[in-house]
């Protein structure tokens, strides 16, 4: 079974600084997708960034970028120029690109942003 591990239950960052959230996963598949979702106190899960496993280039969305290391099965999220609105729970998620399978989530990292 696929598993997703987030080893940092909590992280904090000063406003305007950079922070990296870690995620590792375990799979025997070669074709899959990885996601980072943000969950603020409103509970709405919001997609932050997506990476296709077949792409070597790391995905980037404005201040958010990933470091995807397929061989190491690592998928970290870097947030640059952190803003107060970035404070939330962040979940790493995996889904394989075949069959009818749901997203598998990690346990999350709570990010605090200090003004």
């Amino acid at each position, binding site marked *: 079974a696929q598993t997703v591990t987030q080893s940092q239950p909590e992280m904090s960052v000063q406003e305007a600084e950079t922070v990296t959230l870690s995620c590792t996963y375990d799979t025997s598949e070669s074709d899959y997708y990885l996601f980072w979702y943000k969950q603020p106190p409103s509970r709405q*899960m919001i997609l932050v960034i997506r990476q296709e496993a077949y792409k070597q280039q790391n995905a980037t969305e404005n201040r958010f970028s990933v470091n995807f290391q397929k061989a190491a099965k690592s998928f970290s999220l870097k947030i640059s120029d952190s803003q107060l609105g970035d404070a939330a729970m962040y979940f790493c998620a995996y889904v394989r690109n075949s069959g*009818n399978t*749901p997203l598998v*989530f990690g*346990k999350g990292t709570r990010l605090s942003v200090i003004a």
Partner: protein
Amino acid sequence: GAGVSQSPRYKVAKRGQDVALRCDPISGHVSLFWYQQALGQGPEFLTYFQNEAQLDKSGLPSDRFFAERPEGSVSTLKIQRTQQEDSAVYLCASSLVVNTEAFFGQGTRLTVV
């Protein structure tokens, strides 16, 4: 609607009571998922529909949990004889097709007292 809508947002149930949680997915989305999120944890998969067909219900924790999507759009998650351990946020998500980006509702927070 523009997004996934869940109702009610909050539900308090007495132990032993039956509850029904509703999910309105994004129009046209084929896949619909239910997740259970305990406090401080990541979402755990419960069940999955493709149109009206329930293709996977392996995550349902007991036979007290039942989900349906009779017309391939709105889905209902029903919990019979609720127990305190059922207290959690129940998230619904939909996607255009399976294995692509899933869009989530705001969830229903169920508290069993």
